[in-house]
């Protein structure tokens, strides 16, 4: 099974086995989502520990955070979103991943934003295969909320009819 340990920032994802973490949201503010005409709009999901709200990765890729760690932070955002979607609908109701909009905090001389966000896209592909393929819009920024988390992703999913 894939292993995920927030404290150690360790995410290992074998090609066909992904363990999506079960997170207890009891008493916590859910990350927002809204459905309209079969499309689900998921709010910006940061690389945070949802149980205590702390940023698991903070700082800019290319400065405080390496490309490899940035990739893991992107994976983490994908796993969080899948957890949110599972809580709300169950994963079997997801038809496909449509679009992801990523904000990544990067150093001014770091240009490999696509490679960082591959962490997110690779998780979606591993879980849903072709249905997980999505369009993506990736933007570098100097500031993100919650003490400068490294990455935040907003996504549109499509539900099955």
């Amino acid at each position, binding site marked *: 099974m894939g292993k995920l340990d927030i404290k150690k920032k360790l995410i290992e994802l074998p090609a066909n086995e992904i363990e999506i973490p079960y997170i207890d949201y009891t008493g916590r503010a859910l990350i927002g989502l809204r459905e309209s*005409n*079969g*499309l689900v709009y998921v709010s910006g999901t940061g690389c945070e520990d949802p149980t205590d709200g702390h940023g698991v990765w903070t700082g800019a890729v290319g400065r405080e955070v390496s490309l490899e760690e940035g990739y893991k932070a992107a994976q983490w955002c994908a796993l969080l979103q899948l957890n949110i979607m599972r809580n709300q609908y169950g994963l079997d109701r997801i038809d*496909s991943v*449509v*679009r992801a*909009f990523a904000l990544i905090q*990067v*150093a*001014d001389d*770091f*240009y*490999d*934003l*696509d490679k960082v966000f*591959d962490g*997110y*896209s*690779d*998780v*979606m*592909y*591993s879980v849903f295969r072709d249905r*997980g*393929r*999505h*369009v*993506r*819009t*990736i*933007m*570098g*920024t*100097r500031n993100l909320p919650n003490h400068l988390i490294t990455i935040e992703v907003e996504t*549109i999913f*499509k539900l099955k009819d």
Partner: protein
Amino acid sequence: MSLAEQRLKELDIQLPAPRLKGRGSAPYKIVDDLLFIGGVAPLDEDGNLAYTGRVGADLTTEEGYNAGRLVGYNMLRLIRDALGDLDRVDYIVRAIAMVSGKKGFSEIYKVADGFSDIMTEVLGERGVHARNAVGASTLNGNAPIICDAIIKIRK
């Protein structure tokens, strides 16, 4: 030949070939009557960035505008790939234009106009769109501008 194709020919516009990214991402995705286009960079015919750098520092606003036009060509090519014919575009719903400028650069909208102008030059009224132009600190590959779009498909 469709009207838009004819217009492209009249304007002597060649639409460059698209570049495929990582396996989990797609250049476009169709959901019902909506076509989603992912971020499109100002690529040349070989799929390399024709413009790099920040507008206001490495590039002039005019160069940024031209990069925006090239993004438009690339996107039209993707739309044609996705729909088979540009005449199947009902209208462009919405676009995001991300512009990488030097600190304090505020002529973001002028750079984004390069993209928007191409859309209306080729598609006419159908190319008019709601637009969100935003300044990015950095874009992939040090591109000066990247745009995405949501397009309504004609029934």
